């Protein structure tokens, strides 16, 4: 159960850590669903062809990273609305993976490995370790380094960056590349864990990750906390269904528990912040 719990958190850690870069650079990563799907498909195909986990993990991260890096370059070149192009690329990737799976494997829908891959557990552990290390790296890079400061100023302090001749567009492209890489790696993880691929493999995790980074105020530590809360409540709902026969009748209703729990706790956090800020301001007035 602990293994399942950790493996359920890992995709959120990966996706959120990449999305933080993109949000700091000034664009909301609405293309995450596409990045996850493309990463999962790339890793599935490369694993089928090469039978090597290492190659599949590398390609699963690299292909989306390169695609989204150049895609943001294209957005800048033609002055496109990145929200619309993000949604459009999600559609394109869903269609593309479906076409390619038909071309390569003769069918679309759910694809299974023809030969079950051995030692997948080891590589899932490796990706889990990578996800935690990257989250820690993100905290130090974004909040304790000069280059990270440039990322953080990209949206709000753009004129300052221009005065230092730091190219904001380059930072934005790099952020999309990082987001693509982490999303692709999350897709790789899901594909290896499920030993299959389908166009719906992301299951809405991209949108949920965006909500989590807003809740976490772009701080990697709080991303971990909120991912933990979300997955914990999902497991709690599942535990209720598995252990209490009456709960199977309201199984659909229990799917709302994670969202209600996250809303509830975030409400407490936000209101607590307001109350604390008010107390501090009245203290300073009285002084």
């Amino acid at each position, binding site marked *: 159960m602990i293994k399942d719990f950790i493996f359920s958190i890992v995709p959120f850690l990966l996706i959120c850590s990449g999305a933080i870069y993109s949000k700091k650079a000034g664009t909301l990563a609405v293309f995450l669903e596409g990045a996850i799907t493309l990463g999962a498909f790339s890793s599935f195909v490369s694993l089928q062809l090469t039978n090597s986990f290492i190659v599949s993990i590398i390609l699963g991260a690299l292909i989306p990273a390169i695609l989204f890096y150049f895609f943001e370059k294209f957005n800048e070149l033609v002055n496109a609305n990145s929200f619309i192009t993000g949604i459009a690329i999600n*559609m*394109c990737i869903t*269609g*593309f993976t*479906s076409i390619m799976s038909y071309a390569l494997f003769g069918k*679309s829908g759910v694809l299974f490995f023809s030969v079950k891959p051995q030692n997948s557990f080891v590589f899932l552990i490796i990706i889990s370790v990578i996800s935690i290390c990257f989250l820690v790296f993100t905290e130090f890079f974004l909040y304790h380094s000069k280059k990270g400061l440039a990322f953080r100023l990209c949206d709000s302090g753009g004129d300052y960056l221009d005065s230092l001749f730091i190219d904001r567009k380059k930072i934005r492209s790099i952020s999309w590349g990082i987001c693509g890489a982490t999303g692709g790696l999350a897709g790789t993880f899901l594909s290896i864990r499920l030993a299959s691929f389908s166009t719906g493999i992301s299951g809405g995790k991209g949108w949920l990750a965006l909500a989590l980074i*807003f809740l976490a105020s772009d701080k990697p530590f709080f991303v971990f906390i909120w991912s933990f809360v979300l997955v914990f409540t999902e497991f709690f709902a599942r535990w209720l269904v598995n252990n209490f026969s009456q709960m199977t009748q309201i199984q659909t209703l*229990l799917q709302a528990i994670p969202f209600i729990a996250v*809303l509830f706790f*975030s409400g407490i956090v936000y209101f607590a912040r307001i109350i604390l800020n008010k107390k501090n301001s009245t203290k300073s007035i009285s002084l």
Partner: protein
Amino acid sequence: MLDFFILPFSTSFHFGNLLQLTIFLLLPSLAAIFPLKTGALNLGGEGQIYAGGLFSTLVLLSFSQAQTSISITFAMILATLVALIVGGFLAFISGWALEKANMSEVVSSFLISSAFIPIGDYLLGSVFLDKSQNLVTTEKISSMFRASNLISSSNLNSTIFEIIIIVILAWCFFKFTKPGMIFTLSGKGDEFAKAAGFSPKRNRTISLTISGALNGLTGFLAIIGIYHSVHIGFYSGMSWNGLTIALLCATNLNFLLPASFVFSYLQKCVDNASLQGLIGINTGNFFKGLLLILLSIKPLIKKFKLTKSNKKEKND
């Protein structure tokens, strides 16, 4: 290849469906535009459409025995109000959380919608299920509540007139009224709005509430116009399509109808070609995505005109 582009105009059935989708999508687009004008973003449209459609249908089902025109009119008015109130309330919670606790409406609206959808599915699958059917759906609403068909066998129905009136009223609101101008100012910049004496957060709360109400109304009109009963996933994609159209027209109501038409046309090309077996559904989505990317490119003509005027100034 030519069939792909001509099919939506080929028969009255296809053209009627194209027209219906074009005008129907104006409402969720308007629902997306209101918060965008004030600088907010409503990502909870799916849940709001579902809630509005579900609860208004329940009201109509409870009046299924109505005989007189007064009772029928009363039922329709009540169902409309319920759709507006339920959808508006779900969005109001996000606005209130934004105003009081500075909680991002992007998060709260998305989470509220995601929380409501399983609740709605449970109510639909157990309490309000039509047990005479094999599908997970409510009973069909009485024929006296259904919108009348304008082109037989197509989806084009009389709800398009209500939608057009709402869009015209919204256009007048933003163009000619003081609150409309205040909304637009609030979206331009918080500091400017505050300096002018307006509360940007209060305006965002109001715009989110209106957005939720319009989404609720979308659900209601979808039921009385097209589906006639609530089934799982009937709301799917409506809100996102509306948001895409709102961004395509850059929240400018003058371009809302053309943007909606272009989007609906693409959608119908893909749907019709898939149904006819010309292309797969996902292949169609691929081409739709490509075309959307092209459409999102801000006019290069503007850039060309600017460089031309710069050259003219240099020569002078």
